[in-house]
């Protein structure tokens, strides 16, 4: 057994074994992937297979820095596709898993927690007003959220209405179940922070960043108040049909995006749950254009907003200032009504003029300050907000009828499928006109629009049959450089009367106010 022959034979067999093993080892290496199997120093085998350039979101979320699993979860240590894709999140940022993805403790935990209080997540104002209009609640305020509505075991007529017509924009609704208007947008964080694939290139990982372009806002915000359409100067001429051209907002004409005005607290929330949109929005016209009164103006170093403080730190504030790249600690900084700074509003150190930096392309725009001239100090107009005069128009419709057809079929965003029953909206006489005026509980006069003038025939859904005429505060997003004419208020036919305000304490002009408006003499100026 231990003769030379046996030795030679065994040696040959062993060499053959080593050769075969070598081949198998080479095949193994190819099968596991060509790329590195680690991202940012951590073992993550996703990047062994996902090596294509088109699978990299780039930027701050580049694959080389974060790998895949930081956002997409899954099993990073597995070798087979099936096991690697266990518990995969195809839609990172979706609210159901956000605490594991974008909102993980070492990334955007604070932002994710704030988003839970954002009106875009809660839609509490929408729910409250809808239930009020349907006669299901006594006040247009409430804390019921869209998530509650979507989970209601036995939906009321208003809840069903919301589920079918509004649930598709709710931030918690997953991509596959979203409204057609925003098809392709993810849910949760990725609703806004993931760019849609507009370049038509197939299967390219979209970039993930904070430069939120308008197309990600417009899908949802073109309904109801139509602000996305109005901002661009578009008017619906027939329901969901081609648009007529009106004058676009002066800010849009200057190339400004939604995020150039709206603060992060306006959009993502600030940790406090509020019911109505206008309670959430912190930015004011005066923050940029002055005169400074609501939020105030402080030195950059005295800004209290946590996120801005972090930006200050991250930009290595002082070092950059020394190189002349950042703003000095004493740079005047304008704030929104709750103290969040308008970060892209700067005062040139060389002059005293303010400039606004467009966030998407970095273009600098001069920001005109409100002059203290005759037009802005008119006696009797102290209670008017900027937009009461500068909002040029609002879209209007002559009639609006909502009914329920039990025989119809319509998508139900709660069920994620088409179910029997359909809400039918009929409206006619689309046009545009200078906005009505309303009075806020604090006495300020603001633009207003019929916030739900409708015949609701919800009898077939177990609801009421009612005609509602509610007046709602509106920021039409149709700002003009020139204010509306004096005649558009003082020589117009008297404003119609409304049953109630779509907000507690909000009302139209009362008889005395209407009389004063109509009786004003215009020849004084």
């Amino acid at each position, binding site marked *: 057994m*231990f003769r030379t022959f046996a030795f030679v034979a065994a040696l040959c067999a*062993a060499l*053959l074994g080593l050769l075969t*093993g070598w081949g*198998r*080892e080479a095949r193994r*290496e190819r099968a596991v992937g060509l790329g590195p199997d680690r991202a940012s120093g951590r073992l993550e*085998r996703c990047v062994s297979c996902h090596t294509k350039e088109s699978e990299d979101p780039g930027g701050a979320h580049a694959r080389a820095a974060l790998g895949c699993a930081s956002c997409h979860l899954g099993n990073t*240590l597995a*070798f087979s596709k099936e096991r690697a894709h266990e518990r995969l999140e195809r839609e990172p940022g979706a609210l159901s898993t956000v605490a594991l993805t974008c909102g993980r403790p070492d990334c955007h935990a604070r932002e994710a927690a704030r988003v839970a209080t954002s009106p875009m997540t809660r839609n509490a104002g929408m729910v409250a007003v809808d239930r009020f209009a349907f006669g299901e609640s006594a006040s247009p305020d409430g804390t019921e959220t869209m998530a509650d509505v979507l989970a209601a075991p036995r939906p009321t007529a208003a809840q069903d209405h919301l589920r079918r017509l509004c649930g598709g924009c709710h931030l918690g609704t997953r991509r596959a179940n979203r409204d057609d208007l925003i098809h392709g947008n993810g849910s949760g964080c990725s609703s806004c922070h993931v760019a849609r694939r507009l370049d038509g290139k197939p299967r390219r990982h979209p970039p993930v960043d904070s430069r939120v372009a308008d197309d990600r806002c417009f899908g949802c915000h073109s309904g109801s108040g139509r602000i996305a359409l109005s901002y661009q100067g578009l008017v619906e001429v027939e329901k969901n049909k081609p648009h007529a051209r009106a004058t676009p907002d002066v800010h849009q004409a200057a190339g400004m995006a939604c995020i150039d005005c709206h603060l992060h607290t306006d959009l993502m929330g600030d940790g406090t749950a509020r019911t109505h949109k206008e309670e959430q929005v912190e930015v004011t016209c005066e923050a940029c254009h002055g005169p400074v009164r609501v939020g105030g103006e402080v030195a950059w170093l005295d800004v209290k907003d946590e996120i801005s403080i972090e930006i200050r730190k991250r930009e290595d504030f002082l070092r950059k200032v020394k190189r002349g790249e950042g703003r000095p600690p004493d740079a005047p900084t304008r704030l929104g009504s709750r103290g969040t700074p308008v970060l892209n509003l700067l005062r040139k150190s060389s002059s005293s003029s303010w400039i606004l930096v467009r966030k998407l392309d970095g273009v600098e725009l001069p920001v005109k300050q409100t002059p203290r001239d005759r037009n802005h100090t008119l006696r009797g107009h102290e209670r008017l907000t900027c937009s009461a005069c500068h909002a040029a128009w609002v879209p209007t419709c002559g009639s609006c009828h909502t009914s329920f057809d039990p025989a119809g079929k319509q998508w139900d965003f709660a069920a994620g499928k088409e179910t029997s029953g359909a809400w039918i909206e009929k409206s006619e006489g689309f046009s545009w006109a200078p906005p009505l005026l309303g009075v806020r509980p604090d006495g300020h006069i603001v633009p207003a629009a019929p916030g739900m003038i409708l015949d609701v025939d919800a009898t077939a859904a177990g609801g009421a049959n009612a005609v509602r005429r509610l007046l709602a505060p509106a920021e039409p997003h149709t700002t003009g450089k020139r204010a509306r004419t004096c005649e558009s208020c003082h020589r117009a036919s008297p404003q119609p009367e409304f049953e109630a305000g779509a907000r507690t304490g909000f009302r139209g002009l009362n008889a005395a106010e209407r009389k004063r408006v109509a009786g004003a003499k215009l020849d004084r100026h």
Partner: protein
Amino acid sequence: MPRAGPPSGGFGRLSFGFLAVSVLSGVLLVPFYSPAAAWDSLERIQAGLAWGFFLRALHAYSSFAVLATMVLHVVQVLAAKTERQLPPGVWWRSVVLLPVTVAALLGGFVLRGDAEAMAALSIWRRILESLPLAGAEIARLFLGSVPGDLGPVALHHAGTLTLLLWFFTAEHAGRLLPDARGTTLAALVSVALAGIVPMPLGAPPSASPVHLLGPWSLLGLQSALEILPRWIGWIAPLELVLLLGLVRHASGRARQVVIALIALWAAEYAFFTVRLLLSSRG
């Protein structure tokens, strides 16, 4: 009594050599194996580690060869009637080497942590529990008290059983280490097998396959358990050990009877093995 050359045609030496290769390759696998995540660590060894599959196959095939050469060695010893070269105590301990080797192999099989391994673990426990008097305690001694826990199995496999194997083998061979030729030949054969014959990864523990096969050396037992009560699981091995032990004490006619019983046992075992292979093929 003078020793007249190797009484076994060298299978004994070779077996010791394979044991050495098996222990060495086993030690090399230790840093990559985790009993708490057995299947996952095996998957990593198999696919994620450079030459990991080779190392694992080397360990498996050298261990298989320990048993195979040991059985051939026993056959040759019985054929050459050289059992009396060992004192009775050493003989009995050498006979016990056989079940210890099988237990070590079964441990290795179970440590794979795949669907077959977890089934084997459960069967092993139930068979031990069917031992009289202290069945449950003996089961816990070898397998721990938590069902599905591979920790105790791993420690016995790499510790207790390996120590026993080495002690008894060394005592049997009269030397602490295997000889150079035996080890080299064993290593060459193991390398050849490990490179040429792949050792695939089993189904994940969550899978529910229609048929499961135990370790190759225990297929006869698996088949027997389909029709015989579960205590056959310990009666059959005990029977073989007693018969082999008795060979040393019997002579003449008695020895012939014992050898015939051993042959009968082997024939039955072969029958059951073939029966299982045929049935699961069909």
